């Protein structure tokens, strides 16, 4: 994929080759999948150069820093292009800024979940607060009008895909369902 490295903020882009998969470590296989998913998701929305710019901007490959603005833009992407719901986006942003290690993993899990359930489920990214102990984590709720009998099996296959990426991270993300109907 050809990308563009910005030499100033608002123009004068210079080309470089982005996401040369062969040069990434195999331990980061999920990360490669994430970038490829992002590329595929964006190919019908942006021109090729804009895709690379968008990915670079939102996964911080080039600028290499996660901040409130990049997290906000990523949530906007999830809402606008993948149809995610956020009942309290400010809580999700706050959680990701305090647990920066799972920022990219969260994008990855959201994309995996949308791929699995996309058009036949409502996906909601929320911060779950345990009512009994001081513990919070991100949760993607999969909600359907009529629940498929194998929904738990499908959710399990998603969890198997990303759980190893969470090793050594302080934050946590869970995909689950509460069997509630989709929110209005």
């Amino acid at each position: 994929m050809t990308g563009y490295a910005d030499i100033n903020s608002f123009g004068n882009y210079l080309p470089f080759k982005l996401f040369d998969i062969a040069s990434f470590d195999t331990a980061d296989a999920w990360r490669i999948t994430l970038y490829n998913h992002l590329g595929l998701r964006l190919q019908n929305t942006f021109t090729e150069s804009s895709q690379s710019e968008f990915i670079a901007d939102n996964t911080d490959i080039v600028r290499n820093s996660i901040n409130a603005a990049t997290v906000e833009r990523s949530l906007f992407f999830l809402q606008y292009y993948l149809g995610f719901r956020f009942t309290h986006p400010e809580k999700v942003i706050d959680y990701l800024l305090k647990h920066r290690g799972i920022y990219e993993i969260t994008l990855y899990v959201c994309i995996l979940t949308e791929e699995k359930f996309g058009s036949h489920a409502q996906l909601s990214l929320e911060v779950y607060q345990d009512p009994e102990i001081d513990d919070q984590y991100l949760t993607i709720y999969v909600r359907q009008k009529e629940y498929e009998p194998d929904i738990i099996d499908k959710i399990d296959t998603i969890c198997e895909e990303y759980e190893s990426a969470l090793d050594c991270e302080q934050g946590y993300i869970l995909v689950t369902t509460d069997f509630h109907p989709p929110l209005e």
Partner: protein
Amino acid sequence: MKFKKPPIVEAICEFRFSKETQWDPTIPGSVYEKVKDQFPHKESRLDPQVIMKTEETGFNQNPVASQRVLMLSGDRSSLIQVGPHLLSINQLKPYAGWEHFRPKIKRAYETLGGITEINGIDRMALVYIDRIEIPGKRVKIEDYFKFYPKLGMELPHAHTNFVVGVEFPYNEKRDSCRLQLTSAMATVKDHLAVLLTTEYYLVKQKSVSPDMALDWMEDAHTQVRALFKGCITENLEDLFERLD
């Protein structure tokens, strides 16, 4: 200019040191030992970075993974990040004011300077990210901002999201300040949400000596504050509930 409800969601102070500054992998651990009373949680993350080289055919990239150590306060709202030739101090909300953020910057910078001699600064920046929500179904953005997207009569006025930006040069182009207003996700129905990002940064590498870096940061803060004041109207000040 103090507010009861300040819009700041993150303030960032970042230093990138020149290659003349000696660096080794033990430096983050040494920094942590000296700041752990205030930043007790230590985490590390591998950051994929892209090293770019100029070649005859254009730019070429070489992805590498670098280790970055994060040192977080007890409530995780304040952190120091140390990576190869990089020091960043971040303050999330609640932002208690420059008088509370400045000592953290000073402590982190001087701690690092006590561990390795800082021989040059390639880039440094002070960034403020404000998240602003304005109630109302049909908000006239010009009632709240003096810097906003203006749509001519020939353009459709319904839009989903927007980005407007401008850069101001300072100190004979040694420094620059990038101001950006973008749409954001409203947390309440029928609210207009925006992000205002102000990034004051050193453009000319090594044009400020390491012993003047904290003075530069003080000046950067003064300029950022003035720009913020210049961006907002009294209506917005009322929403933030001005205290002084």
